């Protein structure tokens, strides 16, 4: 990578010097060399024998740098591509990685299943992968793709989260206990587009934000002795909020995989009355441990995003906080963006952030939210119940 960059920079310097040299001979040739990609060939021939303006050395330099850059880039590609199929050890590592990713995406894999998936006996391993509905594409890239349910059934698209809506029990996924600082140090920041094929959504993480995976988020929660959130998919942080500070705010990304959720007209006052009358709330969204005071932003659904903010007073305290939510319903569940425990004075920031992330989310083809109930799993509640925490 460094070699490619260095070669590119040197060729850039040669290019600039070449234009300057031609420019000194003729302004027109200089401009044309700058603007037209291959005009330098004309200048090369024209000033071949001119000791003050020939660009033989510069063109040679650019050529050498280009060769070095191409060679380096191709060797990098070969190295990256050579990860799969080079031996049993590499294959085992690749399979372990796939299992880890599947767990992060909410698939239940028992230790017995994992043992069979990692088995050196190819027949056992293949059967185990088929059971999970995952088959090897066989292209040497180590890619996995959704496949048939069983050997006897015709191949059809399959959604891992849909087939495994049950939250994964905590004991099945032991989490390493670390100090918070160590967990924060180990977290890997992701940028750009973040896609989860099995659940069928993609988040275009804004330029100033960073995403950390569910595994890292669980480690951080575990380090603070917080209960494990089985629905967590990721955390998203602004680049100016340090992860190492345990009190810094972040957006929780959660997948509520209960199926298609019906909508109904949202009447804010009625919803608030329902929420206040509900003495035993059962929040499905992330919420602060406190009592609801009111809606700092009343629930509203524009056909794509359900958003609202709750003002809460913490248990055994008069301290008030706001919890902001923006939910993006899909065909088989609801993708949630929540910030909990924010200071009421930061309501605007809180709500704008979750809304931005919900707007930056798209469902993959066939996973979008249909207005009419689709075939398959349906949630036993409506979108309004998510805002009122009704059972």
């Amino acid at each position, binding site marked *: 990578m460094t070699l490619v960059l260095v070669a590119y920079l040197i060729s850039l310097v040669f290019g600039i010097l070449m234009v300057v040299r031609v420019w000194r001979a003729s302004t027109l040739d200089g401009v044309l060399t*700058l603007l037209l990609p291959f005009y330098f060939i004309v200048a090369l021939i024209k000033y071949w024998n001119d000791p003050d303006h020939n660009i033989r050395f510069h063109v040679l330099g650019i050529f050498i740098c280009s060769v070095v850059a191409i060679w380096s880039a191709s060797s990098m590609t070969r190295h990256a591509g050579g990860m799969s199929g080079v031996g049993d050890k590499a294959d085992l590592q690749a399979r372990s990685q796939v299992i880890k990713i599947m767990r992060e995406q909410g698939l239940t894999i028992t230790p017995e299943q994992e043992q069979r998936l990692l088995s050196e006996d190819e027949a056992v391993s293949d059967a185990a992968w088929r059971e999970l509905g995952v088959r090897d594409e066989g292209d040497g890239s180590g890619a996995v793709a959704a496949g048939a349910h069983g050997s006897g059934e015709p191949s059809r698209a399959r959604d891992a989260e849909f087939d495994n809506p049950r939250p994964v029990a905590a004991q099945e996924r032991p989490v390493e206990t670390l100090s918070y600082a160590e967990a924060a140090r180990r977290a890997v920041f992701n940028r750009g587009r973040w896609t989860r094929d099995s659940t069928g959504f993609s988040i275009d993480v804004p*330029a100033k934000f960073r995403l950390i995976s569910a595994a890292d988020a669980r480690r951080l929660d575990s380090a603070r002795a917080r209960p494990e959130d089985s629905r967590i998919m990721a955390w998203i942080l602004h680049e*100016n909020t340090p992860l190492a500070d345990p009190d810094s705010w972040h957006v929780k990304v959660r997948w509520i995989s209960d199926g298609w959720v019906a909508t109904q007209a949202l009447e804010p006052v009625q919803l608030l009355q329902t929420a206040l009358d509900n003495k035993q709330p059962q929040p499905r969204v992330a919420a602060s441990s406190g009592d609801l005071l009111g809606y700092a932003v009343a629930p509203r659904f524009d056909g794509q995003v359900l958003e609202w903010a709750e*003002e809460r007073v913490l248990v055994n305290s008069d301290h008030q906080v706001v919890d902001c939510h923006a939910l993006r319903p899909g065909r088989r569940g609801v993708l949630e963006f929540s910030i909990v425990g924010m200071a009421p004075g930061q309501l*605007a920031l809180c709500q704008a952030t979750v809304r*931005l992330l919900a707007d930056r989310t798209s469902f993959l083809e066939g996973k979008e939210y249909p207005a009419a109930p689709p075939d398959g799993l349906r949630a036993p509640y409506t979108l309004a119940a998510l805002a009122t925490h009704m059972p």
Partner: protein
Amino acid sequence: MRAVMLSMLSLAALPALAAGPDEARIEQLLAAKPEAAAPAAKGKPARGKAAETDSAASLVGQRVVVETRSQGVYLGTLTAVSRDALTLAIELPARSVSYTLPRANVARIAPR
């Protein structure tokens, strides 16, 4: 050469071009100091509030719906009205809390 330079310039400018108004607003909100959550500061009252204060005062003791300028909704019993703040008694499952809303943020108050 020019094409290479243009592409490099475009790449450098990409983040600025890609940042939409929502992202810019978040940056502004991050840079700004958090708003005071407490009731509006005492002192000079806002103009034109007198009539509003009077109408709100007539609702003291009643159960009311308060809508805020930030599109919020609160329900409770109006216990006190001043030029700067409204105070609601809100019943929680285990206790009752006195919640103060700055008048400047109140868009509408109506009996429930």
